[in-house]
């Protein structure tokens, strides 16, 4: 649960925009290219890309290279092979159509051709059995037949059911604008309430309607009557307008409340959901999938200290931050993007203990803080005071043989140091920087700086602040 909350907390608003924007672009591509072969090829490329990512994850170097090459080639092939479709989409449509319009899918079933064909068959008393599938898969219901594939037209229907045609006895299956199968054998109904004059063709139509959501149209050979069967209904059609209405209602080209529009809306909604889910998956695969851990050491900045007090000591001056995030974000992490700050507003004179938390750390968006080392910091504060202290030279090295440093005087002999009371109590002398004896051969003088401890400074603002003059006397060593 905590991981989920931490994960949600790590998602930036830019990430949401990223997913939504690209998801919408993907969805618009689907809307624009649906119904064309481009969309199928795009789906194929998407599958290839998924395989390529899996290959990368599994460390299959050659496979991932090959996949990458195929994807690049396929993208090129799409542009070349489907240039006409792409041109039609991009040229024929206006900006609205490209960006947010939802063109309704054209009803591809040529209803008029079917109506004309059916009534010509009825007029000529040519028996016919036509199946127009709904959503159900009919492969398990229909048996036999010959795969056809011809475009629907009045003439095509007449020729299929022409008495001399070898396949005229079976049913013709019409899907979209094509006759997909002819001479198909339909299941017969076992109902006993059918009129006596209905033959096998009618019984097959009723059987098909009972077992699926298909619309079945029967043309009687004896009477030239047209009957439409759907579900449990079996109604005679007496005019071409009724047939057209029945057909339109079935294929979804009717009024505003017909099922076709609802089905199309559902399809678009599902497509939109899939697009956004896919893009979210892609985003997580790229941005979050390659989660990287790192640790950085940053200086701890102390702020809002009471101006009347000074920091005497701190348990740490730097903290180590254990961070995680996508490799891209971690890789581009700059030192100035990560800061650790401790607010001393509530600190009091003496020793203070602070717990470090996420609030003390500034991180770029998308980078998560896992741990702070150390989790607590001790800060000692004190009020600054002044103290006059003698200055002593810190000699180092050795005089040349035979020489002795006889006496030393420092001017000024004393300097005023400013620091916290606790610090100054520990100091009784100010020492100069290290002064080398090695090069001294005769008495003289030298100006040197006074070195102070951390937290202690010398009073005064002059440029010569902290400088003293050292006069020394060198003589030959006594025997």
């Amino acid at each position, binding site marked *: 649960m905590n991981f989920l909350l931490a994960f949600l907390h790590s998602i930036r608003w830019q990430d949401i925009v990223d997913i939504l924007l690209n998801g919408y672009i993907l969805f618009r591509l689907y809307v624009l290219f649906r119904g064309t072969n481009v969309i199928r090829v795009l789906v194929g490329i998407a599958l290839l890309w998924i395989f390529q990512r899996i290959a990368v994850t599994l460390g299959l170097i050659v496979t991932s290279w090959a996949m990458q090459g195929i994807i690049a080639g396929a993208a090129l092939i799409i542009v070349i092979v489907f240039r006409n479709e792409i041109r039609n989409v991009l040229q024929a449509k206006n900006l609205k159509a490209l960006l947010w319009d939802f063109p309704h899918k054209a009803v591809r079933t040529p209803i008029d051709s079917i109506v004309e064909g059916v009534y010509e068959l009825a007029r000529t008393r040519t028996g016919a059995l036509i199946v127009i599938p709904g959503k159900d898969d009919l492969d398990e219901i229909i048996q036999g037949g010959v795969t056809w594939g011809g475009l629907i037209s009045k003439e095509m229907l007449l020729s299929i059911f022409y008495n001399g045609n070898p396949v005229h006895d079976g049913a013709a299956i019409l899907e979209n604008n094509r006759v997909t199968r002819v001479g198909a054998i339909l299941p017969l109904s076992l109902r006993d309430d059918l009129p006596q004059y209905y033959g096998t063709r009618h019984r097959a139509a009723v059987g098909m309607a009972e077992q699926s959501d298909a619309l079945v149209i029967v043309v009687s050979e004896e009477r030239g009557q047209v009957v439409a069967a759907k579900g449990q209904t079996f109604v005679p059609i007496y005019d071409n307008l009724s047939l057209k209405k029945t057909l339109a209602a079935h294929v979804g080209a009717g009024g505003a409340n017909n099922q076709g529009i609802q089905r199309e809306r559902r399809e678009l909604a599902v497509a939109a959901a899939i697009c956004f889910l896919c893009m979210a998956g892609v985003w997580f695969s790229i941005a979050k999938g390659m989660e990287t851990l790192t640790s950085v050491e940053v200086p701890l900045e102390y702020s809002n200290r009471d101006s009347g007090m000074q920091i005497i000591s701190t348990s740490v001056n730097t903290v180590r931050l254990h961070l995680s995030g996508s490799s891209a974000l971690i890789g581009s992490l700059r030192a100035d993007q990560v800061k650790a700050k401790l607010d001393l507003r509530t600190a009091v004179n003496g020793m203070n203990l602070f717990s470090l938390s996420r609030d003390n750390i500034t991180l770029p968006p998308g980078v998560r803080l896992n741990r702070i080392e150390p989790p607590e910091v001790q800060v000692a504060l004190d009020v600054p005071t002044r103290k006059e202290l003698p200055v002593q030279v810190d000699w180092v090295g050795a*005089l040349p043989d035979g020489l002795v440093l006889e006496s030393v005087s420092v001017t000024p002999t004393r300097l005023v140091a400013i620091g916290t009371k606790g610090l100054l109590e520990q100091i009784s002398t100010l020492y100069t920087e290290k002064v080398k004896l090695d090069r001294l051969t005769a008495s003289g003088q030298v100006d040197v700086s006074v070195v102070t401890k951390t937290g202690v400074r010398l009073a005064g603002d002059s440029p010569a602040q902290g400088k003293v003059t050292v006069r020394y006397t060198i003589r030959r060593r006594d025997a």
Partner: protein
Amino acid sequence: MKRRYVGCWIVLIFLFAGFSKAFAADDDFAAQAKPFRLVRAAMCESIEGYEPKHVAAAFSINVGRISCYSAFAGVAQTTYVQHKWFRRDELVTAKRLTLKPPSWATYSSVQLRDDDKGPWRVEILNAEDELIQTMRFSVVD
């Protein structure tokens, strides 16, 4: 006449005795206010014949031993002083040294080790822990 001279001598003797006592009392007061004074202090490599030898402000670590010599005058009664040896601001040793009237010279020493290089000081304090003088020097290569 002879008696008169004798009387005068007696008066003069009493007066002298009175003045002498008065002056003696003043000397005691002075002795109590200013018990003794440091007449000489020096850092040296050794003491020979109650005198500091090889006085310097910087000593080689190879010397091995250094001493702080201090000589006092006006010591009214037996008392003591302290020599406190500091390396930087860290007290290394404190030595209590006896002073005897009327003048006294005394010293303390420390043995040097390899990590004793750096600035040193010796604080000379009286019995009341009042600082009389600070001797500053360095131990070098």
